[in-house]
């Protein structure tokens, strides 16, 4: 965990007169798992959108590997190594599992980071076996069980050979067993591919099971950032989650 991969400084974002992010700064190191937590409405989703390029911040900067990407649209950030999954897994429902991966692989092949290694068909095979969907290769993506759809989405994102994975509530709506499996999967992916992870999460078991560092967002401001231990013992965080009246306003 040496180099700083992503460096966000003083991000501000407002919708009309409502300020959703105020001066939020955070960094993610290489190979680090960074989880952002906070009550609903704290601005986690907006922060996510600003970092991945879905929205542009009103003020502040985002640097990725030293490059200023603040004004770059989403697809260019992806081409530089971002991968993003959605809270409700999004795949191309009318195409087959294989087609879905094909699109992702072709998109990667056209990007500046495309390698000259294996051919697309070989990489397709490899991805299918990796995530265990070989048996379903010809199934229409829309007909997959939800868990399979999530895995397909993950495979598509991994096809892009990302450097940083942005996961929006990866265990939303899952049972305890599924949650556990997802945590294992994410740990595995992170280790074998040396990825950095940035995710938003609500489930504390998942958070403490995965995080190398945690940032806490409250009313658009970053009130604490540090190791899981430090956060667990942080007084302000405790107040928000456990104490005073206006915690979940």
């Amino acid at each position: 965990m040496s180099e700083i991969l992503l460096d966000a400084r003083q991000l501000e974002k407002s919708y009309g007169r409502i300020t959703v992010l105020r001066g939020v700064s955070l960094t993610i190191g290489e190979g680090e798992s960074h989880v952002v937590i906070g009550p609903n409405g704290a601005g986690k989703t907006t922060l996510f959108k600003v970092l991945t390029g879905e929205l542009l911040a009103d003020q502040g900067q985002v640097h990725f590997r030293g490059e200023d990407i603040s004004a770059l649209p989403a697809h260019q950030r992806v081409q530089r190594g971002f991968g993003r999954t959605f809270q409700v897994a999004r795949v191309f429902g009318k195409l087959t599992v294989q087609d879905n991966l094909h699109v992702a692989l072709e998109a990667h092949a056209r990007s500046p980071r495309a390698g000259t290694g294996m051919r697309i068909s070989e990489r397709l095979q490899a991805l299918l076996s990796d995530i265990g969907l070989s048996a379903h290769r010809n199934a229409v993506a829309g007909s997959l069980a939800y868990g399979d759809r999530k895995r397909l989405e993950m495979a598509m994102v991994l096809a892009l050979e990302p450097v940083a994975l942005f996961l929006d509530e990866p265990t939303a709506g899952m049972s305890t067993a599924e949650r556990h499996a997802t945590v294992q999967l994410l740990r595995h992916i992170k280790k074998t591919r040396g990825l950095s992870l940035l995710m938003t999460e609500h489930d504390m078991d998942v958070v403490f099971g995965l995080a190398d560092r945690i940032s806490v967002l409250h009313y658009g401001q970053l009130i604490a950032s540090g190791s899981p231990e430090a956060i667990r013992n942080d007084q302000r965080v405790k107040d928000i989650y456990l104490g005073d009246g206006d915690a979940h306003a």
Partner: protein
Amino acid sequence: MHASLFVGSHLRRDLAILLTLALALAGLLVPHLLNRGLIFIVGMVWINAVFGLSFNLLFGTSGVLSFGQAMFYAAGAYAAAVFTQQLGWPLLPSLLIAAVTGGVLAMCIGFVALRRSEGVYFSILTLAFAELVHLLVANTSFLGKNDGLSALPRPRLSVGAWELDLSQGDMFYYCIVVVSVVLIALLRWVTGSGFGRALQAIRQDPERAEFLGIPVQRYRWMVFTLAGATTAAAGSLVAPWAQIVTPELAHWSNSTNPILYTLLGGSAYFWGPVLGAVTLSAVFYATRTLVGLSDLVTGMLLLLVVLALPGGMLGVLSRWTRRDSPRNETQEPKP
């Protein structure tokens, strides 16, 4: 690759090419079987097929609904008219310049419209731009104002030193067939290419596509430009074929023709617009004697398709064949 649900996927390529050739052959036999009037209509069917396919490259493949394609059709027609009549150019260069005119027009309009507009607003904007073009054409003297340009020649085809006079007999009909086949093949190739697959992904879920690193905005602009060029190429054939071009070609009712062909035939299928063009031409021909009947029948057909048969004729066909087929596990890929 085994099964795939992409329109234009690999497996069907051979079949598709075969189909095209078969159509072409049938097209070449036509002049010997029919009278002059019908030959004219069949020629128009070829042109309309390309018009429809170009529209569907935008709509069915890429999810871009343009209500103004007539402006490119007219641009091509007028460009061809001006170059063949007033400058005496032969066929191929006129065709090329017409296609380029359409492409450049689409590039400019697309740059403005796609950058700023979404969904319904974009569609209405294309309508507005088309009406602008219509207005300008109808009020420009060197384009003949409301009367347009008439007595257009059938140009000669020159390749190097070799020349062919296309005003003889049915020569121009064969020319239409050849040019149309080339344009159809081009559109088919684009649809089945990696670019085509990316477009299909964009149509289904533009945000997901964007987050796979696909430059959604740029691709839409590119396909809009291409469709403008092929539409103009189709339009450029009308000038020597009908031998008259009028501002009506740019009227918004002409923009709705390819929409009709596409929806009737089925927008999810590459060959949908071709089937639609053939069918509607038959309908128009059958109802030509009673004024207003064609509008009525067309409107009702379209309503039927939208409300009850969303896949169009090919959609209905595919549902029938799938019901008969024992293999219902995965959806059958369609040509």
